[in-house]
């Protein structure tokens, strides 16, 4: 398990909203741009790592009970994304690192894979 504050530190990230969730813990990491794949996950406490910076990634997280999303490679979140995430208690974190490096850093810190 990792606290979201530890996730942010590990990937040199920045939280864009829901900073009250810094102490929330995540157990699994799942890296994907394919929201169809995210919707097949049954575990709880998942951190979604994605390059898909649009309203669909936030909606998919909301409907899958995912409370934190990392947007890699400095992908920007627009205001509609931030508003939806705030309404649904989802922290959006941005990092300059690639999906590969972000996943590697978090794997190294103990975040578990699902498959």
């Amino acid at each position, binding site marked *: 398990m990792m606290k979201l504050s530890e996730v942010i530190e590990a990937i040199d990230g920045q939280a864009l909203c829901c900073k009250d969730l810094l102490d929330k813990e995540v157990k699994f990491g799942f890296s994907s*741009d*394919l*929201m*169809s*794949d*995210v*919707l*097949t996950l*049954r575990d709880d406490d998942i951190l979604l790592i994605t390059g*898909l910076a*649009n*309203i*669909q*990634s936030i*909606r*998919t997280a*909301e*409907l*899958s*009970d995912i409370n934190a999303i990392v947007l890699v490679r400095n992908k920007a979140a627009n205001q509609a994304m931030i508003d939806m995430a705030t309404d649904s208690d989802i922290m959006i974190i941005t990092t300059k690192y690639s999906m590969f490096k972000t996943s590697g850093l978090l794997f190294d810190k103990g975040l578990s894979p699902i498959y």
Partner: protein
Amino acid sequence: MQTSFPVAAGDFTKAGAASSEIKRMLKQLGIPQKTIKRIVVALFEAEVNVIAHSYGGDISCDVTPQQVEIRVIDKGPGIPDLNLAMKEGWSTASEEVREMGYGAGMGLPNIKKNADLLEIHTAANDHTDIRMTFFLDGDKEQ
């Protein structure tokens, strides 16, 4: 209690809006989180299908103490080969839909995995009618 929502074709900015409303309602009714997740994931898959493939449709949700029944009916091309559509990876989604992160051919199989009962009636160049039932007396084991 029963509620229904219209779903417009092609408007991906609103994709999931109806599913989100129904999720809020199910939470207020005190339905267990794991059951809500199954219902909402299956519903969202169906909602995305209506937006991606049909000319528009309606979602209705009927909750009784025993079960939640979701019905998604659209006007549209129908599903020409239902057996193929139930196979993981089979998809007729457009490039635009895929760019949104959907259209990987996992929607109907995922609905089947999450619902306790699934009935699909479809007619080519007319409609698709999906009825999914979720029992409230114990969560489906996978």
